[in-house]
């Protein structure tokens, strides 16, 4: 392979320079833009949450309705990502390995939740599954509504994370397993599933981060009843009643949870890069369970 010397001779600074301003000034402007748009507001949020001391912060986060909303958010999001991990993997498999009429339409429509404004989704959901439901199914204002709304907005994540892995997967392994007498389910469990795990993990973590913060789609459909109030709706309510510090405190908790999800995604990505996708060595570290031993012997 030509790789070694060629890549090393390619100095990191070779190639395109940032036109007009050069790298130093360019970096300065990028950092300035990021700070003004993203970092400064987040700093203001954090500072406000701690403005009356750590004790007050803790008291705001642990007041009954705040805790209840956090619990609902964490649990509903977990249920939702598990459901979407299951259906998302099936859909990715159908889109890569199966052939059926209308496949390209299904493939395109998977991204609908990314493109459709969340408030529109909420409006449709409440008209479809609310009191006036044409199917006679009344979910509006129940915790199930939270789950359904979140299922809608996070549907694409797992599909889009698993699909490329499935496309690139080496089919020889599966054929070898099948020729050695493994049935369809065994091939899936021992060969396909372990290879899909990095994508599945990243997709689930991204979906979870999205679900934790979702607001628009839940708003009309699930509403702000005590047993359907997710944290984002609770924060909104606190802002409206003038409790900025309480709103900021719960926001910081949500923020930390989302950051954790992002960190997990980037860890998974780094692992996959280092181990070159598909190698089975690193999978046991991802899933402590023994499903990944396939290629180990």
């Amino acid at each position: 392979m030509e790789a070694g010397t060629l890549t090393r001779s390619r100095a990191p600074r070779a190639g395109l320079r940032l036109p007009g301003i050069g790298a130093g000034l360019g970096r300065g402007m990028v950092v300035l833009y990021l700070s003004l748009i993203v970092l400064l507001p987040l700093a203001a949020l954090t500072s406000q949450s701690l403005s009356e001391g750590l004790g007050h912060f803790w008291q705001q986060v642990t007041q009954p309705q705040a805790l209840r909303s956090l619990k609902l958010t964490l649990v509903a999001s977990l249920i939702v990502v598990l459901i979407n991990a299951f259906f998302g993997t099936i859909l990715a498999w159908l889109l890569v390995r199966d052939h059926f009429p209308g496949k390209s339409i299904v493939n395109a429509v998977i991204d609908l939740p990314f493109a459709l404004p969340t408030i529109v989704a909420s409006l449709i959901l409440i008209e479809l599954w609310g009191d006036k439901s044409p199917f006679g199914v009344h979910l509006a204002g129940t915790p199930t509504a939270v789950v359904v709304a979140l299922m809608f907005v996070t549907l694409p994540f797992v599909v889009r994370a698993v699909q490329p892995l499935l496309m690139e997967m080496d089919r020889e392994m599966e054929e070898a397993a099948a020729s050695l007498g493994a049935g369809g389910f065994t091939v899936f469990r021992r060969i396909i599933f372990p290879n899909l795990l990095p994508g599945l993990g990243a997709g689930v973590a991204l979906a979870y981060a999205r679900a934790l913060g979702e607001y628009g789609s839940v708003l009309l459909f699930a509403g702000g009843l005590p047993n359907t109030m997710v944290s984002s709706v609770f924060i909104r309510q606190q802002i409206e009643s003038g409790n900025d510090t309480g709103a900021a405190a719960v926001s910081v908790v949500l923020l930390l949870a989302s950051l954790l999800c992002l960190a997990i995604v980037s860890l998974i990505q780094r692992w996959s890069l280092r181990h070159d996708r598909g190698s089975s060595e690193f999978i046991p570290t991802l899933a402590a369970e023994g499903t990944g031993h396939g290629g180990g012997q």
Partner: protein
Amino acid sequence: MTANPASRWTLRVLGLGYVLLLLLVPLGFIFYKTFEHGIAPPLDAITSPDGLHALKLTLLTVAIAVPLNTVFGIACAILLVRHSFRGNFLIDAAINLPFAISPIVIGLSLFLLYGTTGWFEPGLAEAGIKVLFSVPGMVLACIFVSLPFVVRETVPVLQEIGTEQEQAASTLGADAWQTFWRVTLPAIRWGVAYGVVLTTARVLGEFGAVSVVSGSISGQTQTLPLFVEKQYENFNLPGAFGASVLLALLALTTLLAMNFLKRKEDA
């Protein structure tokens, strides 16, 4: 996997049933519901002064936020890919933040920064600039939520094309701008375009963050998504569905554009 017919059909029923119930039925339903009583009621709602104003304001936020984030996105991607630097991983991490943060938290952050007790209040009040409950705050919210898309779509394309052609261009005497316009930009254009489509879709539909900073005053600080909510709250369903169908059509256009660009990128 050589799935037997029975399990293949099980997977089809499960997967396609899920898509049908969760995506296609709602999508069809919104069109049915909107035009149930003809085209007049939704059309009246959108062409009402408040509806038109909401549409105009939505387009204005797109016209400001999308170009800014596109220029930033391309510049940032070039920095991340072409200029290795120890601090790059921090920039890279900060760019992903808007993906993970709740729109409501974004709205609250801006609300606190520019509000009456915020850090900028004395200076802004003196200069007579109103950020909250007016257009600047809404634009800032839109820029925040849609910031990562162009960077995220451009970085992989930039990595993939490598530097050989750029080096050749500069060897032949092209300056940085010429190299950028003639070599780099044509090579990354579909990736950038994909990012622009995602940015636009996000700005058009942004609800949570904008709702906190705008105050949602009819005919003044209402974008289309806020208009949908207000109409629903006022029990004006034709109005809510009229604006929703417009947004849904824009979403479908987005899907078509994504599909088209993905094919271009792969080609």
